[in-house]
């Protein structure tokens, strides 16, 4: 099916979810991540190599049937980074919405920190990850590790 970019934005989020995880991941957390990043950061400040970063969170109960896998790719023609990342279902089930948001933010940041492996030309992924981390910390979305 030809993709129609109806809701295109530099930072985009979606989910592969179940009934149990839908409310905690999608509403309102996905939208909150998307709106905050698009409002606070300009992707073109990091180079011309990436026009958009799309992230899909996978939160499905076991067993894993192998249909939805994690991935991190760079689509050169569209200049789009696509990440599909899993968040542990048992944590999503036991956390409240705010904690799930922290889990999503941490997972997303980890994916950004791996962008360096893709060697995307004309794009400073390291600086982007650092700025996103600062933003998430400001928002209180990164869980602080206790000693």
């Amino acid at each position, binding site marked *: *099916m030809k*993709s*129609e*970019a*109806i*809701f*295109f934005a530099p930072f*985009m*989020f*979606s*989910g*592969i*979810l*179940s*009934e149990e995880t*839908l409310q905690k991941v*999608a*509403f309102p957390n*996905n*939208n909150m991540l998307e709106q905050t990043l698009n409002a606070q950061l300009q992707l073109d400040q990091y180079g011309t190599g990436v026009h958009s970063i*799309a*992230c*899909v969170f996978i939160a*499905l109960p076991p067993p894993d*049937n*192998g*249909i*939805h896998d994690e*991935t991190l790719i760079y*689509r050169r023609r569209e200049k789009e980074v*696509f990440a*599909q990342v899993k968040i542990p279902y048992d944590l999503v089930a036991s956390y409240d919405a705010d904690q799930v948001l922290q889990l999503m933010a941490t997972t997303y940041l980890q994916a950004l920190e791996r962008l360096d492996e893709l060697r995307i030309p004309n794009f400073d992924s390291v600086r982007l990850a650092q700025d996103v981390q600062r933003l998430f910390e400001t928002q209180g979305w990164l869980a602080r590790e206790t000693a």
Partner: protein
Amino acid sequence: MNATFPKPRPIAVPMPPLRPNNGKYLLFCAIACILGVVLYLRMGADEGEEGWRSVDFIEADEVGTPQLTEARRRKLERELEKLRNAEQYALIAAKSGYYPCYSCPDTTHILLYPGEVWKYGVTVGGEKRRYGQSLTRRGLLYLRQLTGEVQVCLEEEKRKIYQYAILPENLKRHKPLKRPPGNKVDR
């Protein structure tokens, strides 16, 4: 004066023999036919043996009987396993907005609110990431609703496509749809 001309005598045309003396000819034909059949069968057999022995997906077992190769049998089993692990899903709106409508009689787009169904579908393992890369651009979420044998999932998908007509989110519309906006047919 009356001249008379003798009637010409009919020329005796030798008649061809009614039954040719072809005993040897018949014998020759019979032998040729038998030889022809034998040669045809042998040729067919030879071609058959060469045929399946020359491909890489058939091998001989201990007694020479053709069977699928190990790699081919494994591939079959993997694909059967995928059919046993199918998913029936719904693509739902992640945000308010206008989404393409293939089942709208007189418009190309329809307003959907978060959580409303855009399409029902079925996927099996191994399909090249059907929606992952386009979910974000299309403002959709993938909601897994059922897992199991592909036949069970297909039946559930069909049930849901038909039942969509009487979902509250559809009944509230001025012109309810027959099926979800993203489903072009009844599957």
